[in-house]
């Protein structure tokens, strides 16, 4: 099948691994990722104020392109996903906001017709974990993997609708499908310190340390994440516990992992 | 009906005794205004409303008819409103055939606790029928009366 694939800016620069492994895995699973031409930044973060229009236009254009292509829109970076999904939700539910946005869009109005998947949802709901399990050539036996969600993937739960925001299992189930053992730890949905790392590195350090300590205490020998910012913050505080993107693990299990080339 | 050059619709509302009539009473208790064009007829259950009652109302000059019952699953008589739903679906397609605008009729579920919903529904319905103007389709029959 073909899907619209939005990598986002970070996946083209500092998080090339996340992108490369996602592409290889998709190929191995029979999903073609069509990258739209001339895409722009998702907006970086979703401003919850309903009078903020300009910063959301790029996401709406992306969504409108996906709707026109009649393919679901797939994102892999947690931040992009959060922004795109929340923007789509606002277009569906806030008529006044949608009306203002549509004045910038030319002829066809957009009201949230596109379907937005996170790459994980694509794996779970479209490909299916059963099908993935059958394609695993390199089962990750014996590995104890902590799945770190952070905040952006799950919250707000009423909009993201990916999983139970307090007791998620989408990554854990993937880890099981890949043959490894998930480690459930309470701090998996607590913030890593986010963008505060610039202004208050001490806060980010404290939050990231708490995540790593909690994962280790529960016996993890690896943390996976979907977010470049989470990975950056956690990496800074982790000396011996590797932090990798979930797509890397997937590619490894599917036997399509090679070192990404520059 | 024209009052001082302004169109005032005539609306008949059938309300079931257990939910919607009590909901209308609650709207009163809470002093929630809705237009006086709405006149309520009490029936034990929405399923007591024979489609011919609605036809008769239109025939006699009603501009809109609304039928209110308990929410599906909450009928005091267990299943009455399910029959209502089906009967009205049939009636509405017939009214459509007769050329009476679909917007002149409505079925709403209003519970005994939904005074605010009752008032809001009536406000909305009256506005909707007012926008349609007078019900002229059965005028000839009325003249023959």
């Amino acid at each position, binding site marked *: 099948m073909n899907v619209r694939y939005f990598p986002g800016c970070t996946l083209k620069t500092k998080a090339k691994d996340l992108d490369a492994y996602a592409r290889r895995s998709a190929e191995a699973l029979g999903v073609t990722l069509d990258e739209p031409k001339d895409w722009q930044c998702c907006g970086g973060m979703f401003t919850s104020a309903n009078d903020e229009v300009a910063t959301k236009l790029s996401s709406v254009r992306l969504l409108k392109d996906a709707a026109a292509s009649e393919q679901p829109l797939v994102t892999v970076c947690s931040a992009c996903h959060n922004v795109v999904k929340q923007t789509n939700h606002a277009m569906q539910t806030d008529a006044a906001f949608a009306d203002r946005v549509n004045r910038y869009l030319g002829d066809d109005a957009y009201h949230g017709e596109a379907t937005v998947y996170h790459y994980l949802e694509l794996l779970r709901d479209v490909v299916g974990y059963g099908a993935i399990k059958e394609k695993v050539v390199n089962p990750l036996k014996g590995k104890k993997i902590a799945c770190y969600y952070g905040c952006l993937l799950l919250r707000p739960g009423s909009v993201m609708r990916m999983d139970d925001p307090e007791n998620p299992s989408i990554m854990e189930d993937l880890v099981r499908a890949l043959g490894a053992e998930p480690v459930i730890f309470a701090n998996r949905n607590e913030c890593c310190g986010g963008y505060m790392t610039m202004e208050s590195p001490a806060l980010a350090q404290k939050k990231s340390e708490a995540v790593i300590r909690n994962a280790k205490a529960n016996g993890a020998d690896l943390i996976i994440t979907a977010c470049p910012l989470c990975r950056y913050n956690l990496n800074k505080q982790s000396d011996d516990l590797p932090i990798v993107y979930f797509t890397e693990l997937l590619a490894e299990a599917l036997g399509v992992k090679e070192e990404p080339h520059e | 009906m024209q009052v001082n050059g302004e169109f005032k619709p*005539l609306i008949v509302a059938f309300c079931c005794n257990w939910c919607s009539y009590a909901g209308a*009473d609650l709207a009163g208790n809470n002093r929630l205004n809705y237009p006086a064009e709405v006149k309520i*007829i009490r029936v*034990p259950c929405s399923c007591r409303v024979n489609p011919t009652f609605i036809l008769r109302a239109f025939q006699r*000059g009603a501009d809109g008819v609304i039928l209110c019952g308990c929410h599906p699953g909450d009928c005091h008589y267990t299943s009455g409103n399910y029959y209502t739903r089906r009967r009205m679906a049939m009636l509405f397609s017939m009214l459509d055939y007769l050329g009476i605008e679909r917007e002149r009729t409505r079925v709403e579920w209003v519970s005994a606790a939904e005074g605010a919903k009752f008032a809001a529904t009536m406000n909305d319905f009256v506005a909707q029928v007012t926008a349609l103007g007078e019900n002229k389709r059965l005028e000839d029959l009325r003249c023959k009366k």
Partner: protein
Amino acid sequence: MQRIGVFVCWCGSNIAGTVDVKAVAEALSHEPGVVFSTDYQYMCSQAGQDMIKASVAEHHLTGIVVCSCSPRMHEATFRKTATAAGLNPYMVEIANIREQCSWVHKDMPIGTEKAIILGKAAVAKVHLNAPLTPGESPVTKRALVIGGGIAGIQTALDIADAGFKVDIVEKKPTIGGKMAQLDKTFPTLDCAACILTPKMVDVAQHENVRIFSYSEVSEVKGFVGNFDVTIKKHARFVKEDLCTGCGACVDKCPMKKVPNEFNLGMDNRPAIYIPFAQAVPKVATIDPAHCNMLKNGKCGLCARVCTAGAIDYTQQDEYVQEKYGAIVVATGFNPISMDKFDEFAYNQSKDVITSLEFERLTNAAGPTAGKLLRPSDGAHPHTLVFVQCVGSRCTACAEKGKEYCSKICCMYTAKHAMLVRDKYPDVDVYVFYIDVRTPGKNFDEFYRRAVEEYGVKYIKGTVGKVVPENGVLKVQASDLLNNKQLHIDADMVVLAAAIEPDRSARPLATMLTASMDTNDFFTEAHPKLRPVESPTAGVFLSGACQGPKDIPETVSQAGAAASKVIGLLAKDKLMGNPCVASSNEAMCNGCSSCANVCPYGAITYEDKEFRMPDRTVALRRVAKVNPAVCQGCGCCTVACPSGAMDLNGFKNDQILAEVDAICK
């Protein structure tokens, strides 16, 4: 032609403030058939009613129209007035000019005009009213109580003591309910078992009481005074009459790893079990999901050790039919699932428990024999954190919590905290609260004792996150009065989970045609004046199935429900509702359309001889309505293709007359 009197009520200024009552009386006096029309300040007052009576006599009235408040308010009052004046009570119609006119319109001319139209419609209807006489039906002098917790037990005992037969249906293998699982009770701290188990014995030994344990109600037919109920007795694979409750089978059963529901899964029981020592009936039950003999025919140990020969692996579910005059619902409550509240790590750590689990942990008959031990490792805890309002007062998400206050949590948490500090003064106890709600006799004093004498640390705020790490629970919470975020290393966290009605309540309500609110609590007939009756005649409510309640409240409500049942069963005959359907035999063609839509099965058919115009006699199948079973919804009247079926009090021509009057 009727002689109609119109009585327009001012209701003080409630009606007269927006409706020109004199103009209404004037306008209606010109309606056909109206021979007298007047207004009065308070028509429902004694003076107002006397005026109606006098007018009936003076003007020889045959029908009455009262323009007043909602018929839901005073229709019964004015019907009684009519009866006293010698009229049939069903010759009264009410025009609702208060709730549906003066209170919803502001403008006097508009309100007056509408009130006149509503009055005209009522006059038009009264013209077609006919005197109605309610039918009578006999009363079966036996009551059914559904649920065998403290509510059901108390109701059954009170009814039985008054000399009526009562059956209790309990779905668990023993009666006792939630109260049997509790340790001490607030605010007196007497032990729950000490006050409950004697009652369980009393009810079991009462000559007027039968207990159907491990049973469920599977079908309810009939109506007040005459319910036909089918009770499903689940196969327990043990003959109740032979089992002596010795427990030899329980000791010998090799399958010992079944989670023990009585201890909320905190320990195990065998596949054949007696829920607890004081169970009533004290009879063993085999859990077919775990018994090797029942699953694959390999075992049979219990049958071999049973000297009474009570084990019967071939037992089948059994259905019992019984007639009842009244039904009491006492299905109780359960704590809600904590799955959606995993910020408290309930699914991640055994040391995070609910308050009901805590009851078992402090109960001498519980899994730890009453010793406070940390569930994960059996160690003595040093710091306990109680969290109140988990899922109560929660409007954010309907799948998660409940909008209402669960009412009992403040008090049982104070009790738990106090008991811990009493037994183990070395344990630090924190209680996080939003509000402490203690309206009840000696309740606030009890809570203050927990704080002042027992040193429980009450903190206004709540817990935001619990992180299990290296054997401790890292609790992050707010302390609002000190404007701080607290970080506490706790050994156990106890969640005061919201309570919700038992899941069996919703299907039961459907069977009983009793109404429920959006939270699945049974609705009372009137929130203030009829709190223990359901709107469905003959169905009564006892205990937490109607709303959250503590034990004293439950017991008082149980007694109140019993007194209502006794009042009903003491009657020999019941007067029915005369507003029922009736069929015109001459027009009926026996097509069954009406019987197919009747939710009560009130319509049957009979073959009747009819004299035809040509003097022959023909046998025709015609519908017949049982007026005692018909509840008067009128569904059949619309289904009837020939127009034979009509509804007394709401006849086709009456409703059409109202329509015509409004549309004139």
